[in-house]
């Protein structure tokens, strides 16, 4: 018994120390990003790394906001992301209602189609998507990129919303209808408010995906003033130019903050959602 307990303490100490190593490996790059973003150019370019932040104050961030390209990219990213989330939520909501509130021929096929479509890698299709948008003069346009993004996030959004809609009891709606509400009225007064958390969670998925997406943005948005934030960020690490690491890290930090916050909000659902049938950005 005694030796068993000692073994258990030893295991725990070992597990704890390995855990701290895991934490360091996960956290250090993130710390280094934030730390560098607050360092002055001299600290960044000194042979000895500076381990603590704040030497350069907000200089890097100031330079970033004086850079027109960053502001352009921020604008494009916000436009595309918000449009994608709004359209995808609307379309997905309608489809989720159809799938979970009605029985009709083709219903199962539709659900399976969503599952299969999720598996199509964007990397295997962007050539013809580019050709199509090019033919319609929709490259370098928010509309063009948004169309592709909507299709990217739709299957997952429908899949998740469907779960939320069918979790709501139909009885509530019926009770309201008995009390004199119209079907539409019952839906918007009873079901819709109850569905709000589901819509928020699903919308956040869409936001994260559209905000982070790189491949399609790289292919579709080729002009300098039409780049999204990830594409703008990628042009920095070009071997042929001296990289302004302070500004790059400031940009990375700014791009990450909304995503990390949103992510923490919906993390629990993310785990279950991803195992059900999944898309990763």
């Amino acid at each position, binding site marked *: 018994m005694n030796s068993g307990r000692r073994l258990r303490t030893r*295991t725990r100490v070992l*597990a*704890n120390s*390995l*855990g701290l190593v*895991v*934490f360091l490996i*996960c956290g250090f*790059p*993130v710390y280094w*990003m934030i730390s560098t973003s607050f360092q002055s150019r001299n600290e960044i370019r000194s*042979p000895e790394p500076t381990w603590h932040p704040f030497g350069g104050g907000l200089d890097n961030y100031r330079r970033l906001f004086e850079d027109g390209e960053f502001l352009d990219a921020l604008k494009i990213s916000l436009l595309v992301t918000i449009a994608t989330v709004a359209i995808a939520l609307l*379309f997905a909501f*309608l*489809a989720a209602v*159809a799938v979970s509130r009605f*029985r*009709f021929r*083709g219903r*199962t096929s539709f*659900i*399976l189609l969503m*599952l*299969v*479509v999720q*598996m*199509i*890698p964007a*990397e*295997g*299709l962007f*050539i*013809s*998507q*580019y*050709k*199509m948008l090019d033919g319609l003069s929709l490259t370098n346009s928010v509309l063009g990129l948004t169309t592709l993004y909507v*299709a*990217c996030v739709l*299957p997952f959004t429908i899949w998740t919303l469907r779960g939320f809609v069918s979790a709501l009891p139909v009885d509530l709606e019926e009770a309201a209808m008995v009390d004199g509400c119209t*079907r539409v009225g019952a839906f918007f007064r009873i079901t819709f408010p109850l569905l709000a958390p589901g819509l928020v969670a699903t919308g956040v998925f869409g936001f994260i995906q559209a905000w*982070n997406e790189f*491949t399609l943005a790289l292919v579709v948005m080729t002009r300098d003033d039409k780049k999204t934030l*990830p594409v703008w960020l*990628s042009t*920095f*690490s070009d*071997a042929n130019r001296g990289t302004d690491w302070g500004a790059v890290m400031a940009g*990375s930090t700014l*791009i*990450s903050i909304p995503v*990390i916050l949103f*992510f*923490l909000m919906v993390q629990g659902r993310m*785990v*279950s959602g991803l195992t*059900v*049938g999944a898309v*990763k*950005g």
Partner: protein
Amino acid sequence: MALTTRPAKSTRNRTLADRAPAVRKAMLPYGLLLPALIALAFALGYPLIRQVMLSFQEFGLAQQFGRPPEWVGLQNYRDLVSDSYLWVLVLRSVVFCLVNAGLTMVLGVAIALLMRLMSTPVRLVVQAGLLIAWAMPVLASLTVWTWLFDTQYGVVNWILERLGGDFAGHSWLIEPMSFFLIATLLVVWMSIPFVAFTVYAALTQVPQEILEAAEVDGAGPWQRTRLVVLPSIRPVLLVVGLLELVWGLRVFTQIYVLQQAGGVTRETNLLGTYVYRSGIGEGEFGVAATVAMFMLALTVLLTAPYVIKMIRDDREMA
């Protein structure tokens, strides 16, 4: 997910039928699906058909400038299959995918198992770290990692130099092997949190009684893990492993950005970056579409078991 038929359905349908003409009622669900279907057909369906057509056409630079594409049947496929570079690409992509998926699974499951042995505060700290690494946008992680491994000012070179290696001014991206080492580090770092969290969630579902019974029967910790814990989370391991394989096969962003940061393109291309460079870069759309079809076919081959399993589960629950 279950396709349960609710008993309440029939009564509700009756009330509905009283209110709306039957035909309109029957069409309503299709109307609700229409916007989603149109969006998918436009942005995925049409390009897919077009890509199949492109792969049967001669579509290079001349066609970019207005010459009508020529139908060449299987010529693109024949050219590719006889081009040894394609096989290098396929082999490289498959090996890269297997190594990354394997490492991610082994490390992710190990972390999940370890998390059960940690004391609660440490576990929360580890989960916070994993969550932040998971939440980082791909591009932000990529730029940080290229900064960490920067030739001149990178902190990794500095540390290795302190540890006695000759790493001052060492360039990690020039040699294909060390290029892929960095790419693997990156991909694994980004993918572990998902595996660790999902597997940990599954581990908490393993009934305590079974573990205690095994302990009473004299099974040591290692035996309990191998013979009781891992088999009971097998379904989750299978799904997660398959997803990692699929994601590993479509890796594009990491390779592309690292190439821009100083890799030798030809020696470091995977299928995805080759499609981009030959299609968007050189205007050889016919060739690019054909390689993309290879990628899609590989993905279908890999995902078919998963999809079939999902369909079967769905049926069983119904």
